[in-house]
């Protein structure tokens, strides 16, 4: 305790105020996350702040001060300090953290990658016509590892070609090829590393929602409800037409199989008889035994 007290005392006044301010920020929001802001130009960062307005607030400061504030916040937020490294900021929201994650992902934009930068993910040159006339560019493509050739008057990439693994450094040649092709392999935006929401720590993979899966769950649930209503013959407004159809189908099936002389099924009974007589005729080999209409 004594060392910490001494440390606290040595903190300059402006830092103390900054920490108080961040602590105040933290207390205003139900959910707080750490976002990476690496590589975002300050003007773009301003735009992002503005877009978030009303949903979430971004707070940037020195990492040491962010960490100190999180530790002092005293309600589990300290768990977030592990995500504070590099260029980061804190994001606070009273909205659903899943919704926040989706919003941040949606706001990401692509950007070209420069020579000397590290690839954030595998870089792929996609299959297709590059639209570039035959020339030395085909050699440049081949030299960076793309399966390219000249075909019908232009340079074509024959298959999706991985030209760099994630984590490797981009060469000058590759950077030139990518920019010629208009490929922007970087995703720029606020990258959520972790969120602490009402007592639960979420990492990005927890927050990634497969909306299609939820949609299909809704369909399944609705279909299950429908099946139950119909199979248990519980009347609901939505399933009544189906239930009536089912009852009608059952009556019709019975009438057909028992050859009940009911006007509603007579055409079907006649069809059935006709089908049977034809099926039997199909088993007769001797054309002499068949009526003219079925003889060859």
């Amino acid at each position, binding site marked *: 305790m004594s060392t910490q007290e001494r440390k606290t005392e040595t903190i300059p006044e402006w830092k103390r105020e900054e920490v108080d301010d961040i602590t105040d920020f933290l207390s205003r929001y139900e959910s707080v996350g750490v976002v990476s802001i690496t590589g975002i130009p300050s003007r773009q960062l301003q735009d992002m702040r503005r877009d978030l307005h009303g949903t979430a607030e971004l707070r940037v400061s020195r990492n040491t001060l962010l960490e100190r504030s999180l530790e002092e916040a005293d309600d589990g937020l300290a768990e977030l300090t592990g995500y504070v490294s590099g260029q980061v900021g804190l994001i606070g929201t009273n909205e659903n953290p899943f919704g926040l994650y989706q919003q941040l992902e949606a706001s990401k934009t692509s950007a070209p990658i420069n020579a000397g930068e590290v690839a954030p993910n595998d870089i792929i040159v996609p299959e297709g016509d590059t639209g570039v006339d035959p020339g030395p560019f085909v050699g440049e493509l081949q030299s960076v590892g793309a399966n390219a050739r000249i075909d019908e008057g232009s340079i074509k990439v024959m298959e999706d070609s991985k030209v760099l693994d994630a984590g490797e450094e981009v060469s000058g040649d590759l950077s030139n090829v990518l920019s010629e092709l208009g490929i922007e392999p970087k995703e720029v935006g606020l990258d959520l590393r972790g969120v602490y929401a009402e007592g639960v720590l979420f990492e990005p993979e927890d927050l990634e929602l497969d909306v299609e899966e939820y949609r299909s769950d809704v369909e399944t649930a609705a279909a299950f409800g429908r099946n139950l209503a119909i199979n248990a013959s519980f009347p609901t407004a939505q399933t009544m037409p189906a239930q009536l159809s089912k009852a009608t189908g059952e009556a019709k099936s019975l009438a057909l199989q028992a*050859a009940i*002389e*009911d*006007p509603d099924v*007579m*055409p079907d*009974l*006649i*069809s*059935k*008889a*006709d*089908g*049977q*007589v*034809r099926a039997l005729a199909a088993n007769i080999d001797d054309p002499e035994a068949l009526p003219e209409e079925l003889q060859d």
Partner: protein
Amino acid sequence: MEYVYAALILNESGEELNEENLTNVLEAAGVDVEQSRVKALVAALEDVDIDEAVEEAAAVPATTGGAATGG
């Protein structure tokens, strides 16, 4: 189905589709005829165009052949 078959024979022979004729055909085949079914059949067929129903049925088997190979 024997009652329906009998009606279809009469339809093909061109004889009138009435209770008497139906009964005759069925009795000739050794069927223990129930008059109520004959009556019900004649009534049920009153508004049915038998040839049309047969034609529609005839259209199906052709499709069947196709479905078997095509499906």
